[in-house]
């Protein structure tokens, strides 16, 4: 029964039917594609031209109110705004902080998710369920509340300091530091990763693990040779989504982080609003967009690679 099902699964998970590209498929995919192209794609394109110094036409509006706007000096535009941003010490500091916080948070999230998922897969039981359920709780909470809750918990007169003051210890005020951004980012990103990775591990057949155990394989070997390779795709997916989410985040660093350096999402908002420099703000936005696209391409490439390896393509 099991082997029949596995065969069925393998067949159905082969590449979609039809070696020849289909027009009907394209037609079905058109509605959301059109929506995205019109309502997101076009504004992004317009934003790109504005960042290059095209200030007429659809960019008349934004050029009217902004300051420090560079108008194009060649037919293709100008890189003056890009030069502004790259030479601004704030941008480099923010970029560094964003990359560091994103990497550290993603590592923590994946590590915690892996630990809990593996524990549930290999041992299971009630305590494992408790851990998994706890980790999913933040999914229920809108990000504004999460940020506020974490701020009041770790702040100057928050729970941590209250608790430790009764023990005679002066617990540091963590708010307005990068540490608080990491805490907030991990807190909000954990649920999705747990779901992905634990589901991925649940899908690994028992027979494989039992067989390995029967051969006398120690647990670390089971983890490294079976669990992680077979759950590789969900793990990469979890890491990609977590990284992209934290890279462009705004609410968490705004409530929990220092004024400067801050994460790119906050800086983009500062430049657009408080400093009234929409052109430079858009340049930074494109950096975030590029980073996100890079991650997306990496993920698809990884997917194609794993699909090829498992013979699905």
């Amino acid at each position, binding site marked *: 029964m099991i082997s029949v099902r596995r065969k069925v699964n393998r067949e159905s998970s082969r590449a979609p039917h039809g070696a020849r590209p289909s027009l009907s498929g394209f037609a079905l995919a058109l509605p959301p594609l059109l929506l995205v192209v019109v309502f997101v794609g076009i504004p992004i394109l317009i934003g790109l031209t504005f960042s290059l110094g095209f200030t007429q036409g659809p960019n*008349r*509006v*934004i050029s*009217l*109110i902004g*300051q420090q706007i560079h108008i194009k000096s060649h037919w293709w535009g100008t890189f003056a705004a890009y030069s502004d941003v790259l030479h*601004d*010490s*704030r941008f480099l500091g923010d970029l560094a902080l964003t990359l560091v916080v994103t990497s550290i948070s993603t590592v923590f999230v994946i590590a915690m998710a892996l630990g809990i998922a593996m524990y549930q897969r290999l041992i299971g039981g009630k305590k494992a369920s408790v851990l998994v359920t706890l980790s999913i709780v933040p999914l229920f909470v809108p990000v504004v509340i999460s940020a506020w809750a974490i701020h009041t918990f770790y702040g*100057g*007169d928050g729970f941590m300091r209250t608790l430790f003051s009764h023990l005679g210890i002066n617990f540091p*005020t963590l708010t*307005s*530091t990068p540490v608080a951004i990491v805490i907030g980012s991990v807190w909000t990103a954990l649920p999705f990763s747990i779901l992905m990775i634990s589901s991925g591990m649940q899908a690994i057949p028992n027979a494989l693990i039992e067989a390995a155990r029967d051969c006398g394989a120690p647990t670390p070997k089971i983890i490294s040779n079976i669990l992680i390779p077979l759950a590789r795709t969900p793990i990469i997916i979890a890491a990609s989504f977590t990284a992209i989410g934290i890279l462009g985040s705004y609410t968490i660093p*705004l*409530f929990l982080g*220092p*004024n*400067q*350096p801050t994460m790119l999402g906050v800086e983009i*908002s*500062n*430049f*657009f*609003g*408080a*400093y*009234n*420099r929409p052109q430079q703000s858009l340049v930074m936005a494109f950096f975030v967009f590029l980073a996100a696209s890079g991650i997306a391409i990496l993920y698809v490439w990884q997917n194609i690679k794993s699909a090829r390896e498992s013979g699905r393509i």
Partner: protein
Amino acid sequence: MLKKRIMQSLALAAIAALGVGVSAPASHAVSQTIQVYISADTNIQDLWNKTLIPAFKAAYPDYDVNVTFDLHGTHDAQETAKITAASVLHKNPGVDLIDGGFVTTLGAAGLLYHPNPGLLPNIANVNKAVLKAGLGGIPYRASSVLLAYNSKNVATPPATLDDLLTWIKAHPGKFTYNAPNGGGSGYSFVQTVVDKYLSDADRTALVAGAAPSLESKWAQGLETLRQLNKFTYGQNGTYPANNAETLTDLATGLVDMGTVWSDQFASALKAGTMPANIKVTQISNPSLTGGASYLGIPNSSTNKVGARLLANWVLSPAAQNLIVSGTLNGFPVIPLSMLDPKATVAFTGVDIQHLRAGYISANANDLKSAWASAVPGK
């Protein structure tokens, strides 16, 4: 089974929601509705909703006023983009009268409607310099930033800026001001410190018009502020994000001194969220800035008549009396002689007609950016 349960729940939710009433507020077909947009703190919201608008409706019963309130400029970016797009494309911006910090930005871009002085008679009473600084906006109230201090821990507050700077260094962690890009009270402190090193001529120039050539002269003041990083609250170069946070830090006793808006402070006292032992004072040499708040009518507004009627009424002695008394304790923009003597007694000794002005918006934005580059975390 699960699907059925979900369907049932969704159906119940839908019925409940519809039963409670359809949500989108009925758009008034009456053209006599004036859409007012306020981007400020809650005390101004109360001023309009509880004081000014009821009085206006009593005076002009044919008009209805609908207020949209955005808390301290969270959505200024959206609103500015929208109004500008509406002006350029000649569409309805959805707002007739704006009370917010971005009015001067719209004015500078030429997007405000300037009613003929004949249509706005009360504007003749307004101080000319204040009017000019609005770039087309209509000033309607003023306030000043003041130094708030905890009278229990601070027996005599500092009298001059130098005294204040000395006090801050002598009491590490007991003073704070918010980041200038988040609130005007912190911005005022920054500009005041920067102005300390500027000549009167330079200060006037920065208030009057965009002066990028003078911005290099801010360096000394910014350096002074940077050196304060070790002494302000947290002692690590981090600052509260906005006006409200500074008020909270003062109220909860985390700091003993901070810069606050006069009207926000008065409202907080009256509402009981600020303990009575916190008092305010003004420093000198230079003093903390103050200035007017401006109303603006977008040139694509669909109810310019109603908007200017409301604006004109707000400038009348009756309305200005309301601004001065009540919970706001705002400063009027018309001469004190035109107001109710009882109300003005609170201003004895305070020169509210000649508040030290803030920079024009272009320079102010640049100062906010310069501060962020030079001070926090350094």
